[in-house]
């Protein structure tokens, strides 16, 4: 068996409600900006929660080759977010993919496409409600009832022929791999908010064992549409009481937390074998040294009150990294901001890191970015990588007053300078029970 290859992070692409691209995102984190406000994508006044986290405006055409613009009509919002993140990520990594060559931003490619993989987490991609309802309403009878027979004969032809392809979760990866010519191992993890961590972890393994040299990995999702917003509202997971103060609405691990705020966003990281990164003299953000995953077995809808699953994922990641809890210098929890999920997470973290949490800083982006679905973990991962690389821990919004059980030491005001040798980032699916953690190390030869 070949020795395990070292894997490093060489690029980050972020699309978050507080900023597009690494620098805008980082700057907003440092300045305590909140990306949550009244929803503009549609009229939300029928919902109890009318606030959310929408991305700043962007032009898709700025992130793809001109020849690919016609494909925009088959791209759902989730796909667009992934495509934007991919552009930022390869640019940030200095990878001259087919996209950059076709856009005239690079002379020739500097990577081998069959050795370039993709592992992009996705959610349950929502159909465009306007398109679907318009088609469905053509099969309504005079009394307003729906006729399946009318749908078969006339109604369905009102949907675009490629309608289905807009909402297949693997289309995020398909568009990204086409745009950037990534022909290597390709996967789409669909595990809710744990998707990004699982995708990054799997890509890490793929490179470590030698099946690819470079992987673009992470996740993206938009919950800023009525279908996606209806689900957490029905499940009672949304904070319905802070419509007037959106910047205070998402309060991870705070004593007075009242629920999640739905949002959109994503992140894609470039992982690369150390040898490959060295050969092209890439800037190295950090080294990935551990991955662990687990599942809740107490239920699929509600978190485990004792956080046994959270603890197991954290422990698995630490063991994989070959380090102990007291070697961790930064804790990056998920922070759903619901009572139950945060309680479960706190129990698990306290169990594994215990007193170490009293001595190290912690970081969660949730208060600023909301719940970005399958993209959540990738946004957190990017924040963790940047904090480690820049020896700076940004503030975590709305984390005070802290839950009495919490030992996390979130930065409240100005960013804190801190040398971080090792950091651990955690993600959890709110439904389904999947948990995952990643361990990063400051890069040293």
């Amino acid at each position: 068996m070949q020795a395990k290859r070292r894997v490093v992070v060489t690029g980050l692409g972020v699309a978050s409600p507080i900023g597009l691209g690494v620098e805008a995102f980082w700057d907003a984190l440092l300045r305590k900006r909140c990306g949550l406000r009244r929803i503009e994508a549609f009229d939300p006044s029928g919902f109890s929660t009318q606030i959310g986290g929408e991305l700043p405006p962007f032009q898709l055409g700025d992130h793809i080759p001109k020849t690919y613009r016609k494909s925009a009509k088959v791209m759902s919002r989730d796909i667009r977010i992934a495509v934007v993140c991919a552009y930022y990520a390869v640019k940030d990594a200095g990878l001259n993919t087919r996209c950059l060559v076709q856009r005239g931003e690079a002379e020739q490619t500097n990577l081998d496409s069959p050795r370039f993989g993709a592992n992009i987490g996705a959610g349950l991609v929502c159909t465009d409600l306007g398109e679907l309802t318009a088609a469905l309403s053509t099969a309504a009878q005079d009394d307003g009832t729906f006729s399946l027979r009318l749908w078969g004969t006339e109604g369905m032809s009102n949907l675009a022929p490629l309608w289905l392809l807009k909402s297949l979760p693997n289309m995020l990866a398909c568009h990204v791999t086409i745009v950037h010519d990534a022909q290597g191992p390709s996967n789409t993890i669909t595990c809710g908010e744990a998707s990004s961590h699982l995708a990054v972890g799997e890509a890490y393994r793929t490179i470590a064992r030698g099946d690819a040299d470079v992987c673009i990995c992470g996740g993206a999702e938009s919950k800023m549409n009525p279908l996606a917003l209806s689900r957490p509202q029905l499940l009672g997971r949304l904070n319905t009481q802070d419509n007037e103060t959106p910047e205070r609405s998402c309060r991870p691990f705070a004593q007075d937390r009242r629920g999640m705020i739905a949002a959109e966003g994503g992140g894609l990281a470039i992982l690369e074998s150390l040898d490959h990164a060295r050969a092209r003299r890439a800037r190295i953000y950090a080294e990935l040294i551990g991955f662990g995953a687990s599942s809740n077995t107490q239920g699929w809808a509600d978190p485990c009150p004792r956080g046994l699953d959270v603890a197991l994922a954290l422990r698995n990641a630490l063991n994989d990294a070959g380090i102990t809890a007291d070697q961790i210098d930064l804790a990056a929890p998920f922070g759903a901001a619901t009572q139950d999920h945060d309680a479960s997470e706190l129990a698990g973290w306290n169990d594994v890191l215990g007193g170490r949490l009293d001595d190290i800083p912690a970081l969660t982006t949730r208060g600023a970015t909301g719940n970005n679905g399958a993209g959540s973990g990738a946004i957190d991962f990017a924040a963790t990588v940047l904090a480690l690389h820049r020896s700076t821990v940004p503030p975590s919004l709305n984390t005070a007053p802290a839950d009495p059980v919490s030992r996390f030491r979130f930065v409240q005001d100005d960013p804190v300078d801190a040398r971080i040798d090792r950091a651990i980032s955690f993600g959890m699916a709110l439904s389904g029970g999947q948990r995952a953690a990643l361990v990063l190390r400051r890069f040293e030869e």
Partner: protein
Amino acid sequence: MERRVVITGIGWVTPLGHEIESVWRRILAGESGVAPTTLFDASTFPTRFSAEVKNFALADFLGDDAARHKRASRNTQFALAAASMAWKSARLADCMALDSTRVGVYLGGGEGPADFIPSVTAAIAGCRGPDGKMTSLDFVRWTKTALEVFDATSEMEQEPNLAGGHLAVQFNAQGPNLNTLTACAASTQAIGEAMHVIRYGDADVILSGGTHSMIHPLGITGFSRLTTLSTRNDACQTASRPFDRTRDGFVLGEGAGVLIVEELEHARWRGAPILAEIVGYGSTADAFRITDVHENGRGATASMRAALAGAELTPAHIDYISAHGTGTQENDAVETLAIRNVFGDRAKDIPVSSVKSMIGHLIAAAGAVELITCILAIRDGMAPPTINYNTADPKCDLDYVPNQSRRMTINAVLSNSFGFGGQNTTLVLRRAE
């Protein structure tokens, strides 16, 4: 030393039944599971038939435990049934010393069917003006009705990772839990990645495979709009005709296949039945077009080559190929070309069949169910047939085991699954030593 990965249990829910041996006999006999669609009124749809799972009751598999899963989606219920069958066949219930933190789940699970009646109720309410006339969508009217008629649990149960969540609870699988949804490649992908999870050492036992049902109005609509379904309504049992020149699309099926994927020494330690060894896995992207596969079969070729290389086998070792073989003009021609690219002159000597000719296309679940047929093919020395094969196509010029199953020695098998958008996956299995 590298950890070896074997299969120690199998279970499935298919359009030909829900028990391993009887379904296998029907497959070897070349029976079709295709019939007019009964799950909804498809009488005016362009395609009015499908390969449905019939007479399914979760309690037949889980007994009293079925009650806790009664709100689960059709997908999840299929997965639970297949998993309980696999768990029993692997004799895991007898293993008192099983470390549940080392038991994982890796599924290629599809999204659950949308709750159709509430969906159309909200749609019409959102589009119907006060005068009863249809207008463009009013989000506030839609929201008011949707929040009244949508059911929280059934909305949540549509999430594709929910089948994995139910399995984790039912089998106390505390280890890594993942779901992939790479369209029609998903369950082959899940099993291949599960192999790597075990090889690396992240788990010792994984419930892996896939589950999917798209036989619902919007599922059939989506495929009909793509014009990928056969419309041979007057002869539905012969509609699925992979590699035949007159093929006109695939037949949508539903079901689940779950396998117990296990580390070899772990399986030996507990005295488990060892059904086959997973030796190779390939995953590639065409990176070509959303709607068409690469015309030279570039990605499919690379996927098969990667699986063979991982298995440290050459094309000469492969005795049988379980094709993706959907029955669309494009897939079957390009898959044939890709097999030729990989196997060269030997391609015409290797039997290649598509059981989709009998059970239809199970989408995310297809690869897992097909891999189980490969295990049984090795065990019994029988290659399943491609039924409905009558007219040769010059673009499809391999030995497709037409219409009759074939007795032959099978020691190593290659199984393909390809998904929309250019996702290619391949597994290589070998007889357990």
